[in-house]
């Protein structure tokens, strides 16, 4: 699939879809995923009951690819078990890395399988995988913010923040 078909058939439609774009009431898991270099920022929320993802949604801003990927992912995992969701994550990453090529495996991803075409624009792969990384970490119990590019040691662990009439070292 070339970039034009990817955009016109998949990305544009799904990035504007609103049915998965909402906070989840009574969410058991909530994690914000950001790509600082491009400004993609999504908060993924879902509710797990008896090991089943009974509801999921996302809020945030970003490019069409990151937004479409999040929506397609939520379509796929809603109503599925946590283990099934992890299975889909493995297939998705395998597909993106080109390690999984078999159609019958990739077809398990349903409409999200179309994102295989993102390989034609390597610079945008990080947009396509953001929501999936965020889901993976949220399923592992992480909450808060997941920053996929930040250094663990910014300025020896400190930052500068406005404080009243001056700047102070935190």
């Amino acid at each position, binding site marked *: 699939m070339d970039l034009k078909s990817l955009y016109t058939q998949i990305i*544009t439609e799904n990035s504007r879809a609103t049915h998965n774009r909402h906070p989840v009431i009574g969410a058991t898991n909530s994690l914000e995923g950001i790509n600082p270099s491009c400004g993609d920022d999504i908060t993924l929320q879902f509710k797990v009951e008896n090991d089943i993802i009974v509801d999921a949604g996302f809020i945030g801003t970003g490019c069409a690819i990151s937004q479409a990927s999040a929506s397609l992912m939520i379509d796929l995992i809603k109503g599925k078990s946590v283990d099934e969701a992890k299975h889909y994550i493995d297939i998705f990453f395998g597909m993106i890395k080109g390690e999984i090529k078999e159609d019958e495996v990739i077809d398990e991803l349903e409409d999200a399988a179309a994102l295989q075409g993102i390989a034609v624009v390597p610079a945008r792969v990080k947009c396509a995988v953001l929501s999936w990384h965020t889901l993976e970490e949220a399923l592992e119990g992480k909450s808060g913010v997941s920053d996929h590019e930040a250094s663990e040691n910014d300025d020896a662990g400190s930052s500068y923040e406005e404080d009243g009439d001056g700047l102070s070292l935190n």
Partner: protein
Amino acid sequence: MSLMSDFPILGADENGKRLVYLDNAATTQHPLQVLDAVRNYYTCDNANPHRGVYELARKATDIHEQARATVARFLNASRPEEIIFTQNTTEALNLVASSYGMKYVGEGDEIVISVSEHHSNLVPWQRVAGARKAKLKYLYPGEDGRYTGEAINEIITEKTKVVAIAQVSNVLGLVNPIDKVVRRAHEVGAVVVLDCAQSTPHMKVDVQALDVDFAAFSGHKIYAPMGTGALYGRYDLLEKMPPYMSGGDMINQVHEYKTTFAKPPRKFEAGTRNVGGEAGLAAAIDYIESIGWETIESTEDRLMKLALDGMREFPEVKIYGDDSSAGRKGVISFNIGDVHPHDVASIMDANGVAIRAGHHCAQPLMDFLKINSCCRVSFALYNTEDDVKIFLDSIMKVRSWMGLGS
């Protein structure tokens, strides 16, 4: 007149396709004259300057010092010793912040910068303010992206010790009123640090006429190799500033427990320098001067006007800052409806057009403009009307792919 033939990377590939390179504000491409100068240095003249007594070392030293004289001429510094070679603008600005800022800014003093500064002229000052318990204050533009004399006079006060500002914003592309900044800053005894990274590619920068105290630019934005750049500093200020990095070549005498330092500029040039790059930088300046500012400015101004006129035809295109071509150099930042800039850049890339998308290392300005990011098209002396036409066609393509304007 097209200078494209001087730039090998801009030529057509084996399929007859050529790159429409419009990300010049990030870095420019290199003419053969620059590539040849670098090759020639390493082929014929390479030795460690200032260190050997043999003939080859003398030649390398001459090239190093001639390049300094060329940069001094380029900026119209009053003497070559006011030019310190750096890796780029960022290193030059960090040098001023660390050396001058950390020594001469104290508790309760104020540092004034503009909200449209590149992070390289912002984060170093944040750190100086933090370490010295000084106050960092921001100059804000009007709706049109222009800074007024009133705002400048108000924000710079008797407590201001440093005013750091870009001559041309790397996002808005507007030429800032440096004369007004300098007048007010000097009235209160503050020094002016000018970031010339986005002005030096497009206009004559004369540090004496501007009367600034420091000025920084990058070689790689003026057709010279990456890893080259310079800081201009008024000699009397350089003399009273402590060294930045220390080690070899920046010393006068070293004893076990005491060192005396060399005079400027060598006081600030520790270690072996990028002389091959400096040979390329001098060649780039010669190249620019051989074409002449009149030709460069008239070519780029024509392309700028053509692009702005074309962009205004699309109702979804939002241009940031005053959208006229007057007082604008090199850069146009924009968004297309609610299409994310990275989608715009990907679609343009599929059409063979390279533009920048993102926050352009100016996040406080993005916040001020209330956007996350934007697209930026930027011109250089080799761009053509055909490049602008293909860029405008690419906007059409973005609209059609993303279902706008249909």
